[in-house]
């Protein structure tokens, strides 16, 4: 929480550092961890692919053409075609924005509610804190995928429901982390100084606590995106998420399942895509944790 970074300590004679300088020092610390840097670049690549990729593909991801079904990867169809003759490369590219937005929005849902509950719990304490944290404990005791499964089976099968389900099961982790960080920051003297000046709780929470607990939240969000993507793909694989012909990777994996013996690429390629994206977010998140934590990086 304390922003006394080794690089910037004792530079009171240097000209004032601006935001640009901060980013630079952050990048330097991130790049010390090569895996994190690779993860970071992969994440950026994924985002770019998701944004402009669908405009660059020549095939329609949903067009069925039985004359070209089950083709091996070739120059024409880079990743081959599936059992309906759809170009797998095109479907992977079109699946990218889906995958990323499922990850992003479910974490957004989880983070927003988790932060509200966590800050409330940590800042005010008392009975509500006890109640909220016991509920969180109960939710944490459920295996995530099981909880998501239960929620989806109640809410109905669709990608939006998957986002909500994964979001809900992300809430307790965020609430926990935010509560802990809030407790730590709340005890610092600058919060007391604000109270001594007569600042409102709202001002203290938004201007003084939230900015100072942003690092663990960002790290958690990044790591959580990976889990969200994995869970969402899992639900789609089980047929509870994206419905055909949506080019969702989990659903594609399920499509390829029946052809595993003769045409493993149909299942393998979406599988690899999931692994790459999840790995990218995990590596990046781990690197972020080190880069944003001044204590871990001496």
């Amino acid at each position, binding site marked *: *929480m304390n922003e006394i970074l080794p690089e910037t300590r004792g530079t*009171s004679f240097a000209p004032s550092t601006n935001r640009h300088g901060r980013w630079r020092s952050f990048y330097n610390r991130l790049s010390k961890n090569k895996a994190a840097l690779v993860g970071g670049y992969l994440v950026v690549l994924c985002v770019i692919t998701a944004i402009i990729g669908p405009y660059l593909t020549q095939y329609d991801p949903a067009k069925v053409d039985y004359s070209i079904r089950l083709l091996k990867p070739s120059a024409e169809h880079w990743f081959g075609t599936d059992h309906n003759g759809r170009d797998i490369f095109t479907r992977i590219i079109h699946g990218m924005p889906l995958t990323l937005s499922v990850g992003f929005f479910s974490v957004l849902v989880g983070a927003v509610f988790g932060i509200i509950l966590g800050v409330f719990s940590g800042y005010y304490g008392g009975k509500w804190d006890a109640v909220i944290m016991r509920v969180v404990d109960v939710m944490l005791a459920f295996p995530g995928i099981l909880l998501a499964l239960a929620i989806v089976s109640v809410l109905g099968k669709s990608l939006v429901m998957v986002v909500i389900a994964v979001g809900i099961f992300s809430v307790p982790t965020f609430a926990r982390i935010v509560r802990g960080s809030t407790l730590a920051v709340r005890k610092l003297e600058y919060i007391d*100084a*604000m109270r001594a*000046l*007569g*600042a409102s709780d709202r001002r203290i929470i938004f*201007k003084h606590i939230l900015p*100072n607990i942003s690092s663990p939240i960002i790290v958690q969000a990044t790591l959580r995106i990976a889990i969200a993507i994995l869970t969402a793909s899992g639900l789609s694989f089980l047929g509870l998420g994206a419905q055909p012909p949506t080019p969702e990777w989990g659903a594609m994996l399920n499509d390829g399942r029946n052809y595993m013996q003769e045409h493993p690429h149909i299942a393998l390629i979406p599988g690899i895509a999931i692994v790459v994206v999840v790995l990218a977010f995990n590596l990046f998140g781990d690197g972020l944790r080190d880069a944003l934590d001044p204590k871990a990086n001496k």
Partner: protein
Amino acid sequence: MKTELLNVKHLKQHFPIKGGFLGRIVNHVKAVDDISFTIYEGETVSIVGESGCGKSTTGRAIMRLDEPTSGEIIFEGSNLLALNKRQMNKKRKDLQIIFQDPYASLNPRQTAGEILEEAMEIQNVVPKSKRRHRVIELLETVGLAAYQADRYPHEFSGGQRQRIGIARALSVNPKLIICDEAVSALDVSIQAQVLNLLKRLQREFKLTYLFISHDLGVVRHISDRIIVMYVGRIVEVADKTSLFEHPQHPYTRALLSAIPVLDPDRKKERIILKGDVPSPIDPPPGCVFHTRCPYATDRCKEEIPQLRTAEGAAGGHQAACHYMEEIQNGSMERAYS
């Protein structure tokens, strides 16, 4: 004539200790146990004592950073503890606090200028258009330069950060400033600078200080009057000179005997107390000091001594001991030495 600024009456601060599965209250830490004192306008009163004696708790209770268990805090005639949250927040303009740890007392995400501007914004002391100007004025008042307004706390040294903390306290034009170990975390050379700054500000802005410290040297330098605390109670209150030259309470004597003397030829009697400081969870009955006092009698174990002025002592010099006169004239034997 001296006018009362702050009058603390029977202040108690008991923190509950929760235990067991259901978190029921099993006991209390009696951090401050029934203390009363007065601070007059324009003076510097120090509270000294060992760690855990309740001196910081007293400061925080006066600011209502922790809500006191009972008592009255009369500031300029009105009881702060009777105010509601909004009235209190308004009143906070007149009371400010400077903290011990210069590394924890500033928000690392705000520049020095933003910190000061926010303080003015909260209390609405300066119109928005003039705040920037006032920030620079304040920085210069505490010995910093205008160009440092846009720097973040990590770009300052400990002493400079403490100056920003002082500027923040000053920004709302307070009457009373509580300095809670304000120089304890600084180097000795920086301590002197900050103390002299505080003294200068006191003259310029007619401030009153409640100075909380465990450092007798610092206290001697800055105070007019001194309050000595031990396990949540006041054991002695006196003018600086009177206290240092004629300590009445056996605890104060032991405390003062711990100050090193520079003259090697001067005979110095070092009083080493036996035992440990008792726990404020279960303070001893009677005089809290009787477990360690070399003069303790059976009376000390039962009867709580009240603050009183000893015969022959200076006016306003009060101590809480049954046997001050006897100890003074040497008619009491020490149980150990």
